[in-house]
């Protein structure tokens, strides 16, 4: 599940004019889903079922957010 807002309705974590909000299901526990952003790829590269892996980003000095990026197939997700 993902979508890519094209207008800024507030501060996105990515601070970019367009970002991909998504819900990711963790392979470690079926049914466990987290809200996140998909980063390090173009919106066109995203599809439902895309394997992703976590990447932690310091949003500011207090807040670290968990994003996901496309994962090479052999890497753990």
């Amino acid at each position: 599940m993902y979508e890519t807002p094209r207008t800024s309705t507030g501060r996105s974590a990515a601070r970019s004019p367009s970002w991909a909000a998504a819900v990711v299901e963790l392979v470690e526990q079926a049914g466990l889903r987290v809200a996140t952003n998909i980063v390090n790829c173009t919106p066109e590269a995203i599809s439902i079922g895309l394997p992703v892996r976590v990447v932690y980003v310091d949003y500011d000095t207090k807040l670290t957010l968990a994003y996901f990026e496309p994962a090479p197939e052999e890497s753990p997700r």
Partner: protein
Amino acid sequence: LTRKVVIAGVGYSDLGRDTGLSEGALAVHAARAALDDAGLDPSDIDGLTAFPDRQGGDEFSGPTLNFVQRSLGLDVRFWMASGNGPAQLSCAISAAAAIESGLADVVMCFRSVVAQPRTKVASKRTSSVAWNEASFSAPYGAAGSAPKWALVARRYLYESGTDPSLLGSVVVNCREHAQLNPRAIWYGQPITLDDYFDAPLVAEPLRRVDCDMPVDAAVAVVLARADRAADLRHAPALIQAMSCAPGPAIEHDLMDFGRQSSYYIGQELWTKTDLRPADVDVVEPYDGFSFQPLHWLEDLGFCGRGEAGEMIAEGRCRVGAELPICTDGGQLGVGRYHGLEKLAQAARQVWGGAEQAQVQGAEVSVACAGGGPRGAAMLLTTFSP
């Protein structure tokens, strides 16, 4: 329902982008119009309900019950408002339940909204402290209405195998019906599929025109014991069945996107009546976003999974066709009434009061509203004492 409950009258305020009226004034205007439509006086009303209510809510919550009670001079013995639970029709559900249980005989319910500058709402939702379930999604830019519901839309399109371009047909259908309704914000402004595809994306796959236009507007509905029918100005609409089942997961933001409350309501509603989907003459499904009527039509059994988009694109849901939907123009055509108007229009259709949008010979209608786990449906028929 064991005791019969009817929709006795409905009323609307002025509608516009900036009417200069407060949400309280809009509510009172709609309530007075509903009393007039029902042929009742304020002294006949002994119950008052709303969704949600300013008390404990935010700037989109409408006036308090207290304000409307004072303004109309009502003497009520039942009152209830909630922003949680079965969403926009919750005020009608609680009114019907109150009448059936004997807590009240004649209940006024209302919803009043005012158009807000979008930037103000968005900044408020994204820059202030996120609370409740939104604390998990807001940091990722999915706190506002369109970004959040775009996630659900994407999942619906994926699971149902619906071509995203069919969302355009929903918008065109609503805009066409808005031409039958002089109150509609898009009256005089129909839209073509080409116009649709020219509209900017707000949150993919949703375009600006896939989202309802915020307006100042209020709608009020009067429910009554069926044995009051003789006192009414016109024949009422009988509530045959209702359902507000949320499903097993009532979390809002991280719910099972593939199975919203509409699915569970579809499972329950038809167990409470001998009527079947094929008996229904007109459906008023919630359309705050264009994908929502599709899952309502499919989940309530009016067509198979993934078939609603094609059904609308083929023109089968226009007034005059086999299953008219959103006959007042829907929220996509009229503006964001926010749901209770679905019940008002479904009732008008079966008592023959839908004016230019009247579905000839309509005897059975369904109103349904909500998204995610919050939703409700009411099945109405013509009433004969």
